[in-house]
């Protein structure tokens, strides 16, 4: 059963990821990314990482992608795909295309090193076993403990970064509001 679910989710993840790049209409591109993220959540469930699966859906499919869907639905579809637009824009486009190839190869090499170096050792083993109890592997209690002991510094830095982002958003929105004020007053009058 888990093998069936694994292959369904894995095919969904790969199809979703390729769909993001290949589909012309940005709205369907975003939807395909949502499908990809949901398939990843299913894979996390197979690895007994329930909390990670739930967070994956809530944060990525539920919050981040919602904003993408918002923007794409409002702004509407662009006729040309990204690569077509880059092709037609002179030296800048050529530079970007070359850069994209370099970055793509670099990421691929890094992934291959990571995968061949460690991941394949575990390919013939079973995942973490099912252990009932509130402090078992992958439960919120277990991850919370790790975050507040072993990874405390990284956790605090990440939360600080988010705070800065939130404050920045408020400041930017406030500045826009100042500019928009006289116009609104005119509409009101």
């Amino acid at each position, binding site marked *: *059963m888990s093998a069936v*679910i694994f292959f369904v989710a894995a095919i969904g993840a790969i199809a979703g990821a390729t769909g993001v790049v290949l589909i012309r209409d940005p*709205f369907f591109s975003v*939807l395909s990314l*949502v499908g990809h993220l*949901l398939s990843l*959540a299913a894979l996390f*469930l*197979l690895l*007994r990482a*329930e*909390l990670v*699966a*739930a*967070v994956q*859906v*809530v944060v990525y*499919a*539920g*919050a981040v992608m*919602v904003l993408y*869907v*918002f923007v794409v*639905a*409002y702004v509407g579809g662009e006729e040309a795909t990204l690569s077509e637009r880059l092709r037609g824009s002179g030296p800048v486009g050529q530079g970007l295309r070359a850069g994209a190839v370099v970055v793509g190869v670099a990421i691929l090499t890094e992934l291959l090193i990571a995968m061949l170096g460690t991941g394949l050792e575990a390919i013939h083993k079973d995942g973490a076993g*099912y*252990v*009932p*109890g*509130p402090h*078992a592997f*992958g*439960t*919120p*209690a277990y991850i919370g403990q790790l975050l507040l002991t072993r990874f405390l510094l990284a956790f605090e830095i990440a939360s600080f970064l988010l705070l800065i982002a939130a404050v920045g958003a408020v400041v930017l929105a406030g500045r826009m509001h100042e500019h928009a004020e006289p116009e609104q007053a005119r509409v009101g009058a």
Partner: protein
Amino acid sequence: MTTSVLALPATVGYYEPWWIQIIKAIVIFAVALNLVPVVLLVERKLLGRFQIRYGPNRVGPYGALQPLADILKLLTKEQFRPRTSVGFLFALAPTISILTAVAAFALIPFGNVQSIFGTRVGLYGVDLSIGPLYLFAFGAIAFYGIMLGGWSSGSKYSFLGAMRGAAQLISYEVSQGLALVGVIMTSQTLSLTGIVRAQGGMWYFIPQFVGFVVFLVASFAETNRTPFDVTEADAELVAGYNTEFGGGRFASYYFAEYLNVLVVSGIVTTVFLGGWLMPFGIHPPGWVDPIVVLTKMSFIVFLFIWIRATVPRLRYDQIMSLGWKVLLPLATANALVTAVLVVVTH
């Protein structure tokens, strides 16, 4: 697929052999399917009373068969779709709504682990170690039901309704989640049965009153009920995101809305009103538990209908400022104060 999803995540308390889980999945779906027409009828009857008229009273005794007639009417209608719509998304969107509502219903515990004919069965679909997070995960997917429905209709009214719904859902999901944090910190567990057991001394709506009110208001917004029903706002948007839907697809949206009301009442019952526990230390036999839960749920459903009949619809900017400027600070303050209290008292 349903059973595998139920069987996969590790349950906190007790979990049963696979065949019991299949039976439970069917029973829970049957209960949900049969509760929705009842809520529909009760709502129409009560709205009638609130507005000093009778409500449905022609089909069957006291109009009791009216929902059945409605469903039959909707299902035999033509499956109409506008020429500008996007075919497969138009068909998919209502099923997403209905799927997420039914999946969330599986979370509500109707009772403790019982012994039925010698087998131990937990009277809930699934008792997860991630509890409320599962609910929010399906809430996040439910957003796509509304959003895709509105977008794929290819109509301006539907699109505006869906956009309003989307903004409203993200805004209020934050307060809804934060309102539960206080309860989770007090009970020290994410499992919903665990939260109910932790309420043996006192139901959480007393010590967590602020969280209770914030959660209730945010839930009204999450289920798109009046006073937060700008997604449908029939005065301005015809019927909002489901303007172009008819027949069975409209019935799906309708069903999902009322099932979501039931889910939210179930969650409020479980988290704040002590679930299957009785007040004053009464310990009834196990078979009473589901009746207790359903009774408490019906109070919350009544509250939903009462508020629908009483409070007028808020304007869109009022909804946004209520969510971000009132509910979110309240929920945050509640979580902070609870955190300090939990640390001090332990």
